[in-house]
């Protein structure tokens, strides 16, 4: 209602109707707001109800939270509100998509030096990643996306080079993708991807694939499931949600000179000579 603005039939401002009610409820001595919670069971009768509430883990200490909203401005929490909105009750970490970079924690710590609200698991994980490798042994391992996110540029490039070199071009990742609308173009363009070659142009083949579905990917993970060579394709998309694609692969197929240079270098890393072709052709077209 609040989001719809004017209210039929009186054309009252919706917020003007709602806000006093909300303030009233919030400040009522007998009312406690439980956010991100679900009612599991209600028993008893009027005047004597018993309610079982499940409070989900938010990784936020609500007594300490000041509602500054700094954490929601980092890339990784899923409270991407539009400008000005800092709905404290929506600040939570979706464990399924958290790559545990710790940026939200950092933001919280910086804003509230004394009493930071994001405390428990998220904060521990943040400190975990900063431990030297020998101390991490025997403790919870990092996720793959976390590992990649923490790599420096060179090792990240080497990682992808190695993983993507496993590709046998079965097109399984493309064929099973629910958001890939087939038009036969990109991956079958002989100018970019030379037909009949194993592995197909590394990393161009997978970059083109990832870009094609960048905004549409629902992280269903079918691409990774379908990959006979176990390439961590899902990690590409997880990272691309959170970080600009160029930092996933360290290159972006744009047109500025530096980027193009990186692309050419990446392509040249392959031992076979004819892989230079795509870059050369692009230059001519330009």
């Amino acid at each position, binding site marked *: 209602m609040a989001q719809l603005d004017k209210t039929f039939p009186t054309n009252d401002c919706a917020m003007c109707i709602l806000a006093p009610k909300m303030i009233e409820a919030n400040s009522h001595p007998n009312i406690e707001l439980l956010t991100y919670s679900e009612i599991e069971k209600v028993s008893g009768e009027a005047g004597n109800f018993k309610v079982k509430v499940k409070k989900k883990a938010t990784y936020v200490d609500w007594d300490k939270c000041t509602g500054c909203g700094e954490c929601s401005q980092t890339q990784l929490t899923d409270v991407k509100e539009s400008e000005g909105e800092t709905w404290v009750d929506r600040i939570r970490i979706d464990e399924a998509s958290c790559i545990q970079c710790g940026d939200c924690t950092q933001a919280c710590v910086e804003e509230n030096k004394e009493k930071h609200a994001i405390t428990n698991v998220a904060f521990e994980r943040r400190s975990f990643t900063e431990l030297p490798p020998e101390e991490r042994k025997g403790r919870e391992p990092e996720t793959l996306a976390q590992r990649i996110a923490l790599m420096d540029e060179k090792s990240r490039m080497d990682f992808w080079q190695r993983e993507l070199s496993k590709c*046998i071009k079965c097109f*399984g990742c493309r064929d099973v993708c629910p958001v890939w609308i087939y038009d036969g173009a990109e991956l079958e363009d002989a100018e970019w991807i030379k037909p009949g070659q*194993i592995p197909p142009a590394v990393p161009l083949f997978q970059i083109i694939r990832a870009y094609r579905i960048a905004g549409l990917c629902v992280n269903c993970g079918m691409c990774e*499931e379908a990959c*006979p060579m176990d390439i961590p394709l899902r990690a590409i998309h997880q990272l691309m949600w959170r970080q600009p694609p160029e930092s996933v692969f360290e290159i972006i197929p744009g047109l500025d000179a530096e980027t193009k240079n990186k692309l050419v270098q990446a392509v040249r890393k392959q*031992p076979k*000579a004819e892989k230079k072709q795509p870059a050369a052709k692009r230059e001519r077209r330009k």
Partner: protein
Amino acid sequence: MNSDFVLTVCPFCGCGCQFYLQVLDNEITGVVPCKTDEISEGKPCIKGRNSADFINHPDRLKSPLAKRNGKFEPISWDEALNILTKQLGEKKQKYGADSVGVLASAKCTNEENFLMMKFARAVIGTNNVDHCARLCHASTVVGLAKAFGSGAMTNSIPEVEGSDCIFLIGSNTIEQHPLIGSRVLRAKEKGAKLIVADPRRTPIVQFADVYLPHKPGTDVCLLNGIMNLILSWDLADKDFIAQRTEGFEELERKVKEYPPEKVCEITGVDQAALENAARIYGEAERASILYAMGITQHTTGVDNVESCANLAMLTGNIGRESTGVNPLRGQNNVQGACDMGALPNVYSGYQSVTDGKARAKFEKAWGVKLPEKVGLTVTEMTDAALKGSLKAMYIMGENPMLSDPDINHVKKALSSLDFLVVQDIFLSETARFAHVVLPGCSFAEKEGTFTATDRRVQRVRKAIEPIGDSKPDWLIVSELAKKMGGKGFDYKSAEEIMEEIAQLTPSYAGISYERLDNGEVLAWPCASKEHPGTRFLHKDAFVRGKGRFFAVDYKEPAELPNKEYPFILTTGRLMFQYHTGTMTRRVPALERELPTGFVEINTRDAKKLSIAQGEKVKVKSRRGEIEIKALVTDGIRPGVVFIPFHFAECAANELTGRNIDPEAKIPEFKVCAVKVSKGGKHG
């Protein structure tokens, strides 16, 4: 509207991935991966994903054809079978049963191969029955049978994942057995060491810890060199050798003659790499050897296989999980076709035709007298046809006009036959020479079983009705056999044939459709209805009792390069096409990737001959000449060129020679001398 999902087995390589065929109103609409399949885990390769596309191709043969005045005319089944009965009967009467040759097929089911073998032996009365295993793993069947007593992959595919050291020799695993390649990479992720020996830089080489690019044909020397180092460093498994093997002293003496310096000179590999490989393999807890055509397709094929067996026994890497000597069989049912006795010297289950007891068993079961003499092999049949002693041939689902060495010779041989019948799903290069062509069924239109490379027997299920007037191959063979007076061919279904196979074949005794349909994974030997199948062979004892070492000497390949023919030609396959391309060249997705062949040549050699990338060149051998596009690459040894054999328009086998291994009769596809020159039409 009827829709169904039919679980079946991929018709391409020997991995034996299962998937579902999606059927809508008797038409196949797609392939759906099967997540519960142990091998593919729901992740088939590109050939598997597109394996339904050729089934409904307009080129499919839809009725029997007879050649009249040089043209094929459709005829009825009755007419076709009458011609066959008359012609084959006549040849048998006039020239004796051995004037007829039969080729079974590694593409067809176990049941069909068994029936074809029974037809040749019981109805025609000849042991002249063979199939294309002669051209791929004949040396394995002979070599491993001599060393261990059983000529098959010793361990199973999933076990590869658990190895500490994987030694790949002469196998382009990622391209030819993608799902085994994936297992190799998984083992590598877990920390296994990978050694690759191959003259070509195949895609798996970039993951290798040690890469040994040896000269084609020097495998024995390389393996002897590795064994020499293992012995001199005292890494051999002495207990294993003492308890479970024989003939070790002889091997020890022989191997001493191969010091690393000499080996490196002959094979052309780096000594440090050789030492590294020997150390890794020798020290590994569970080492697994994987090999393929690079070992077998030589005049020394059996020697090569024996050397692999020697190496495994020397370090005790056999008879345990994730170890062994593992020949990767190239076709969906080449293992099965061998098991079914579609070979000139054995009945099903490798029971020798010269063994009176085995013969008596089959004679009793079939109620006929069976021939005693060992028959002709594929390679010998073409020679016999040319000589005139072989008058008629019945070829089921094979394409020797592309797959056999020296095609011009094959062409002469086939055209000199009095009568040739080809049974296939498409009008192949070979079928064009036939007098009568019979339309068989693809894997989607019949019931049966395929045996994958790791001895795993799996069910092939019928998804749609046969296309046009085509018939399942087992039905054609049994109808023909009945017409020719054969007894015991009244099968109502493929299942009945399997029951007969189980009765007569000890290693298949416990295998039945009922058990397979219940989802049991059965790898032979499976001795009884209760037997769970065998994951890895030679556990406590070798099949032949003790493992036998063979002291083998390095012999040079039959045809070495000289001044006139300075290059070594080695042939092979590629990811996107399959064998002679009868099926894959009709699949748009695959044909798009690789529409034609090429010759791979080293950058240095290309520079010397001033050959540019993509230029048309002439490749000539003593037997023929082809025109082909050049692919200049650093991924191949200087002095060696590579041509895939899939493509009829630039057929590598026009060049290859007919030099064969004396024991296994396998031709040397991997080494022949050629000349490369500029001057193709557009060059």
